């Protein structure tokens, strides 16, 4: 299974194997990664699965969608160019080795 590295705001690193087709948010929540809430269950409604993608190039990540874009303007932590909602990042083989940093707050 391809893996994703989560780096918490305090520097703690967690590497997870993520099944293809599962969102990064779901993988993090199911493995109790602190710092990703995903309270709305992936409905692009709560903006509590906000991540900063550290190495976006070459992974074929989907473009930021219209609703995601609006919600990224309203996250608890500041929006940066590399901001994404991790519920919208659905795992593919090509995404192996992705690294995401977690913001200091989700709500």
């Amino acid at each position, binding site marked *: 299974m391809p893996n994703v590295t989560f780096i918490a705001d305090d520097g703690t690193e967690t590497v997870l194997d993520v099944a293809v087709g599962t969102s990064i948010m779901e993988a993090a*929540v*199911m493995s*109790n990664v602190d710092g990703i809430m*995903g*309270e*709305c*269950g*992936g*409905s*692009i*409604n*709560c*903006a*509590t699965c906000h991540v900063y993608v550290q190495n976006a190039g070459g992974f074929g990540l989907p473009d930021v969608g*219209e*609703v995601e874009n*609006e*919600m990224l*303007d*309203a*996250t*608890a932590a500041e929006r940066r160019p590399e901001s994404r909602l991790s519920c919208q990042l659905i795992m593919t083989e090509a995404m192996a080795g992705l690294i995401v940093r977690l913001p200091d707050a*989700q*709500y």
Partner: protein
Amino acid sequence: MPNRITSQIDPFSPEFRADPYSAYAELRSLGKVVYLEKHDIWCVHHYDTCQKVLTDYDTYSNAGGGGIRNYFKEKPWRKPSIILEVDPPEHTRTRTVLSRALSPKVLRQIRERFDADAARMVAEVRDRGEIEAVSALTRAYPLKVFPDSVGLAEEGRENLLIYGTMVFGAFGPVVPWYEEYMETHKDVPDWIVRRCQRDMLAEGGIGQIIYGAADEGKITEEEAMMLVRTFLSAGVDTTVDSIGLCLWALARHPEQYAKLRDDPTLARNAFEEATRWDSSSQSLFRTTLKETELAGQTIGANEKVMIFIGSAGRDPEHFEDPDTFDISRKIKGQMGYGVGIHGCVGQMFARLEAECFFQAFAQQIDSMAVTGPTGLRMHPGLRGLTTLPLALTPKAA
């Protein structure tokens, strides 16, 4: 007659309203998709099928109306909601405006006020011994902080509860009680519309944020008014009832309340667990746009499907030991706010409101006990308490 599993269970009967959970267990044991002959509707009641129906909006539409009445076949009681009762792509624009108005960024600025109001309201009753907790707390608190946040004037706020009863009462079949209620309070919908106008809403409130989207050209002035109306319809009763049911659950599980009392930071998780275990919104409706197959069952076009999210929260295929109320449960993906594009747009607001309330409560109250009969609302609409007599023991100062 098509092949199907049928049941005589009536989800709008007093017996069902008094104890939906044993009916859910029966439905789950019957099969994944059941036809309720009393009302000629389909229903789903397992976590996986509820999730499937709620997320497949190409098949299961909201434009057919949020309740049992089928707008594809009959006229709605009010102009359909421009966010609840529409499908994409129209839905996306209005939904996004509301999502942003209720986003973490906005809520962070509101939290302090929620904390202060909750602490003050609990302090007012903490030494009274015995209270009727619905009127003293679980209705009073949302009725204060919610309209304050929207920017509504103080006067006439009880109309919000009346309007909520009208909105949620329309969910089920028409009964004489409801028709009388609509007649008695026929002026209230106009009152609500007047209060939703731009010049009636205080600066800095969520109402003005929604009108700000009209200034940016994302929605029209009329749509802004309707979104404020939607927010007022959907945000008061739901939180009143959910906070009330959570307090009731905690009062009946002293060992769970003790955990919260000893660690008030569990408040958000406690409310999340209560929303799974017993919450105000027990079911939703969708209407099929085309013939479809669900878990082996063929369902025709233009058919109503009732989704028992209250049952999804008790589905042992998804939640371990689902009938146990455990506020320290690591709870993921509970469906009490629905899920998918029509998942409750105010869910972050509701969580914050409840978190602040139960945190303040746990900081001040050592223990509580139910001292008399509680009342459950039996007329159509949400699940909620009418009375909750509670004896409170304050924490030592």
